[in-house]
């Protein structure tokens, strides 16, 4: 399957948006070669602000730029883009509902070598709990580009969670994209899997395997985690015997929690595949780490089989 870099898509999109709209500015905390915001810096040095390794200052500075008519995009690793400057996001950006786009790069366990301080298993939780915040988690590079085009049209803050590693391209460049919509990538009639990010491809693999065992699964890419499309959620569970969620994030306060909250009055069993409330660790490659944390197609299959057997 064709794989593509989401980080590169972020950088290219920044450049494109910068060409289209001179209000676009970018801020970076010394990780621009990794987040790829450097592409924007090379093209528009005047509108690129190197903030040093000072994420709190970076966030509030972006707020000042937004208050003065600019459209700031700030980026760094997801842990440093969310937890480190959490109060700056809350107070300077989210309370005044400013159009600041926060890119949490190398999100989830995708920075496999760097270990627990650099792996974000809590970024969705932190951003989702903030009123006014939109939380996006693209499945591939194609969707990342569409999200960037949509994010600049938002009138409030947006968090975009970007994977460090090249991921399979699962979406169609020509299909329509709207923030807040979920996307059915495979249909089925027994169970539905709501997945985000890297876990979408794992879920498609799981559905493929289950099909051979006579279990038919629907797979839905939930790339907008907030606001969650409750109507589409309800429509997707109609006639299903099980719901399984799959995400590269702690099992608390992520996609699975969001879906369980939304379906709390629906009588349908929900299983979650997520990080089991622990920090990350170093590994020699991404798949090895995902396996060690149970973020696999096999885990999704097991969960579905278990619920259906009960």
């Amino acid at each position: 399957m064709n794989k593509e870099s989401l980080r590169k898509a972020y950088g290219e999109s920044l450049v494109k948006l910068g060409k289209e709209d001179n209000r676009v500015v970018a801020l970076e905390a010394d990780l621009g070669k990794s987040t790829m915001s450097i592409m924007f810096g090379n093209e528009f040095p005047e509108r690129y602000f190197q903030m040093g390794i000072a994420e709190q200052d970076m966030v509030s500075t972006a707020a000042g730029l937004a208050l003065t008519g600019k459209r700031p995009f700030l980026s760094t690793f997801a842990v440093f883009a969310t937890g480190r400057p959490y109060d700056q996001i809350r107070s300077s950006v989210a309370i005044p509902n400013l159009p600041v786009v926060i890119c949490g790069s190398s999100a989830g366990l995708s920075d496999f070598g760097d270990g627990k301080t650099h792996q974000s298993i809590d970024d969705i939780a932190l951003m989702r709990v903030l009123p006014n915040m939109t939380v996006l988690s693209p499945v591939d590079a194609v969707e990342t580009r569409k999200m960037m085009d949509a994010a600049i049209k938002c009138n409030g803050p947006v968090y975009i969670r970007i994977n460090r590693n090249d991921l399979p391209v699962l979406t169609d460049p020509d299909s329509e994209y709207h923030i807040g919509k979920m996307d059915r990538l495979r249909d089925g009639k027994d169970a539905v899997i709501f997945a985000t990010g890297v876990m979408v491809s794992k879920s498609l693999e799981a559905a493929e395997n289950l099909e051979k065992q006579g279990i038919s699964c629907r797979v839905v890419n939930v790339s907008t985690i907030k606001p969650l499309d409750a109507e589409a959620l309800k429509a997707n569970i109609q006639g299903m015997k099980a719901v399984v969620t799959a995400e590269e994030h702690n099992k608390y306060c992520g996609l699975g929690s969001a879906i369980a909250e939304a379906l709390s009055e629906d009588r349908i069993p929900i299983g979650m595949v997520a990080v089991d409330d622990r920090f990350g660790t170093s590994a020699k490659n991404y798949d090895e780490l995902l396996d060690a944390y149970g973020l696999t197609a096999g885990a999704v299959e097991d969960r579905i089989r278990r619920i259906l057997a009960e």
Partner: protein
Amino acid sequence: MGNNEKIPYLKKMGAKIRANIIEMIPPGKVGHLGGSSSIADVLSVLYFDHMKGIDSSNMKNPDRDRLVFSKGHAVLAQYAALVELGFFPREELAKVKTLGSVLQGHPDIDKTPGIEAVTGSLGQGLSICNGMAMALRLDNSPARVYCVCGDGELAEGQIWEAMMTSVNYSLDNLCVIVDYNKVQATGPTGDVFPINDIAGRFRIFGWNVIEIDGHDYASIINALDKAEAVKGVPTAIIASTIKGKGFPFAEGNAAFHNAALNEEQYEECKRIVNKMLEEDCNE
């Protein structure tokens, strides 16, 4: 207009700011009297003389000067000035910090006309001002940005990050005023968390620094004029002030950082501000 002509007027406006602050904290209502009255004189010069484009009928003028209170808890002083400039009706003063009021406990851009940023969580205002100054420069705007910080607030690490950014980006369209009133919530700053030689610290970070008596109108005016003339670096005005200035029982007294007045104290404050307003400010 020369200083001799405008100082009496600005003193009068300083008195009005203090009178309006008192109007917002009738007996039993908690408010930040100390840190609001220490900055009242600087605020009078900023709003009623120095800042350009402050116009309640054209609030979105892109070339207006910006003022951000990084020490957002002293927002009563800002409300006290903004009401005189017609940004909201005088009746709102009595409704401060009540449900549905346009005057919130801390600065709120959604609620209050004339407020430029959300602050209150300390230490964030200077970074916000840097962003504003960067944006104004990109737009070739002549507008200037003013940031009022508290001295206790300087314990926040983000302030020092922002101080480096202001210098790295040569933000000479930015001026910080430190309300150096030497008292914070739980006591004298020198006891709670000493930050010696504030001026020296700004200097070593690369700032142009001016030290003044923050209650002396001629000094305030001159410092703001000098700050505007300095190119290539941002300016910090360290304004030595008295917490609770004007109200003897509250002066230098941490108990009035954020407190309610009793009937007697309130009446005394009313007498004081009425006298200030009646005084011939030509002396």
